């Protein structure tokens, strides 16, 4: 794996991936989670025209909270779960077709947060991967959302926070399967073993072909046979140029960080406490 990654210094980027357009959480506790997000520096800027969906923003980051119950489906879990990631791509239709040709599953209709048709495929667990190509002159939010006239549409980032990546839990011995998935569909590359960022150096780290974000794949740790471990996206990583400064700014807003053991805040990174039964945020010192 490592050797192959090293032989290909220039990543191939078949879909023209250009970073993360938005991250979507699903929860039935939209207000409580919104309060957590505001502590984390996100501001609610717009509401969906017809659904229980809110757009939060902070600097370059868009974050959608979906508490809509699609007809015939149960309402989302209380615990906020990472339901989708939207990738910026050169051509969304082409990215979608390319993925289907290679064996991706088309996402179920009406599962999406948006009325606007955004093509997407199944990701890990129940999560989805969307493809968005309108992010330069025209934003997808302009169609579906009503912006709050009292709020700034583009609130600045706290301490330079930006998307750094996502952490994905996987079942034992599944790393190779998921590497095939991300490499083949999107052109992700494995970073050499031992190259990690942040305070949770484990699993396998993948770099996006645009080199703008990372994915970390984590199998259950040894001795965790008794722990219920499902596959899914488990947390986002927020990049910060100066982690201690960001930690301090967030603490002043009431964010609590894990402050003992190996994950206590350092120059490298920090991990927040678990909110609402499952949501946690990781800070990572970032060059991005």
């Amino acid at each position, binding site marked *: 794996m490592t050797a192959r990654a090293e032989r290909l210094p220039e990543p191939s980027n078949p879909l023209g991936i250009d970073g993360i357009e938005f991250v979507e959480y699903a929860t039935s506790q939209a207000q409580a989670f919104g309060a957590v997000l505001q502590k984390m520096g996100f501001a609610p800027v717009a509401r969906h025209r017809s659904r229980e969906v809110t757009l939060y923003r902070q600097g370059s980051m868009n974050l959608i909270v979906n508490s809509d119950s699609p007809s015939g489906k149960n309402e989302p879990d209380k615990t906020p779960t990472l339901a989708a990631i939207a990738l910026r791509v050169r051509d969304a239709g082409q990215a979608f077709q390319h993925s289907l*040709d*290679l*064996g*991706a*599953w088309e996402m179920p209709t009406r599962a999406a947060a948006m009325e606007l048709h955004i093509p997407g495929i*199944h*990701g*890990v667990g129940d999560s989805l991967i969307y493809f968005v190509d309108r992010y330069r002159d025209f934003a997808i939010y302009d169609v579906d959302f009503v912006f709050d006239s009292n709020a700034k549409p583009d609130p600045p980032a706290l301490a330079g926070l930006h998307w750094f990546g996502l952490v994905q839990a996987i*079942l034992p011995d*599944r790393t*190779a*399967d*998921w*590497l*095939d*998935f991300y490499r*083949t*569909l999107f052109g992700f590359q494995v970073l050499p073993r031992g190259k990690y960022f942040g305070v949770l150096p484990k699993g396998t780290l993948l770099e996006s072909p645009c080199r703008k974000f990372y994915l970390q794949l984590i199998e259950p740790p040894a001795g965790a046979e008794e722990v219920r471990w499902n*596959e899914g996206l488990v947390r986002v990583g927020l990049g910060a140029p100066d982690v201690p400064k960001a930690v301090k700014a967030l603490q002043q807003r009431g964010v609590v960080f894990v402050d003992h053991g190996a994950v206590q805040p350092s120059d490298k990174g920090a991990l927040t406490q678990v909110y609402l039964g499952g949501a946690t945020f990781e800070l990572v010192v970032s060059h991005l």
Partner: protein
Amino acid sequence: MDTITLAGPLEAKLKAVREAGFTQIMLNATDIVGHPGGEAAAVAAVRSSGLRVTGFQVLRDFEGLSGTLHAYKVDVAKGMLEMCHALGSTVLLACSTVSPHSTHDFSLIKKDLQKLAMLAVPLNIRIAYEALSWGRHVNLFPQSWEIVAEADRANLGLCLDSFHILAHGTELEPLEDIDAHKIFLVQLSDFLWQETRSAEERIETARHSRVFPGEGVHSDKVAAIVRQLDETGYRGDYSFEVFNDDYRQLPLPMVAERARRSVKWITGVVSRRSLPARRATAAGGAG
């Protein structure tokens, strides 16, 4: 054991297999969709049986098609994968195509198997590709291995079926070249005559007249296959792939007892450390 050997409803098969001392079951899609209580009832019966599902079969004629035929087969594959997942099975058996509409171009066959493997990734399913001895383009296990090795996907491997190896009189030497970790399933059976001279004869024998290992006339070769696999480091599951019209009209406990005797026969002739029946606690086992 494999449900295809036994007559009767799914619950009766599960019971007979469990009572004969087996811990695993190989399931066929018809067990599930043909269940009078519907798919969900079949899944519940399997899940409550306490038997581990060795694998789910069978996806046919998937590879080498194009256009509408290919799209149709992708839909079929998705349906099979979803059932496989619902049953808690992590192996889907895919047999080499017999379709006259399929291409013999190995690079396209490889591409289709890569696509099938990709479809299986989110569902935590491994694809076991088997060379049917009457397959149109792929009918020998060294061919299926060549394609699987070139496709180079973590969840794409081989199913080896002793019947097809025996029926074709394939040399066992190439087994040594196969990476044991890429064998996802081994199916064992024998038959009662020395040769199958044509594809038609192989099909007829395979579908109606297989017997359990130890009951047929190629016992030495069956034993040699198991020994060889053991030596190359194979530690996965074995299943009895025994299609037999007589067994499907005999009482289930009687047939299951013959299967149990077959396990004893295998452990007797290949009586070494790592046989599946003696590794009850290891990952593998006899189904």
